């Protein structure tokens, strides 16, 4: 089990590093879909998002500190949500295996 914990710890550390540090260097150009939408003339059909005013919107915007915080919150939120859902999903019969 220690080896499993090691992989989990390293994976989480890498995820946090990507979301807080490497994310600062991500391209700010439109992604494939947004580019196509602009080019093909339906980009303006996009409506404002109901949560645009949220501090998390746009992953914290242009401020590096807010972006890092938004990234860390997202990683921990998906980790926690995923753990909860998969813990509830798992079949009980396997608990005796390890």
């Amino acid at each position, binding site marked *: 089990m220690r080896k499993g914990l090691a992989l989990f710890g390293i994976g989480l550390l890498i995820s946090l590093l*990507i979301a807080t540090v490497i*994310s600062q260097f991500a391209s700010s150009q439109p992604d494939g879909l947004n580019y196509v939408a602009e080019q093909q003339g339906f980009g303006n059909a996009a409506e404002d998002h109901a949560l645009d005013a949220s501090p998390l*919107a746009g992953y914290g915007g242009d401020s590096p500190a807010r972006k890092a915080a938004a990234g860390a919150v997202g*990683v921990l939120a998906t980790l926690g949500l995923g753990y909860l859902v*998969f813990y509830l999903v798992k*079949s009980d019969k*396997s608990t005796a*295996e390890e």
Partner: protein
Amino acid sequence: MHIPDGFIGPGVSAAAGITALGGFGLALRRARDYLTDRLVPMAALVAAFVFAAQMINFPVLPGVSGHLLGGVLAAVLVGPWAGYIVISLVLLVQSLYADGGLTALGLNIVNMALIGAVGGYLIYRALFRLGGSQPSTVPLFAGLAAFLSVPLAAMGFVVEFALGGTVASVSIGSVFWAMLGTHVLIGIGEGLITFLVVGAVMRSRPDLVYGSPTFGGMRTEELVA
């Protein structure tokens, strides 16, 4: 790849929402058949990693970027149905970041979880069997399937736009070619990242990779033809 509110009309968005929800229910049942204790932290970690990786837009052309979708990555690591759940949860959290419309959540789940993870896994399994089902080929075929899954998911958008696009003056043919062209390029990045990450996990914990014959847990379908 995240569809905002407003691109696709309410009818098709609602149909996709029902499909996504039904798929989620099916995924919960199917994942229950093989999801054991040891896969729970792995599946949660894969969700966190995909969230992080999707923040990294990489340039593919001047003025165009793309990011990992992660469907095949998740499906090869934790199985297609847990992969569907992983991508759905990531999309749900992202919609709270105003990334992907709330009314478009079903559309995005159909494209990235159903087509990307489950569809992508079927491509992976077919390629892996054709290649002789050797553990050493897991990262290569995962990368290839990941590459193909991106233009495939983009085609999901094209179909949705053809059925329910809100701007009638747009030519579906040119949307098709533009989506295909950009997403083949984004797929190259998807394939490379998937190859590297699956390769790293195969080297350290081959027993935790669902899509490999070395997997130590339960698998509900056969990898070897």
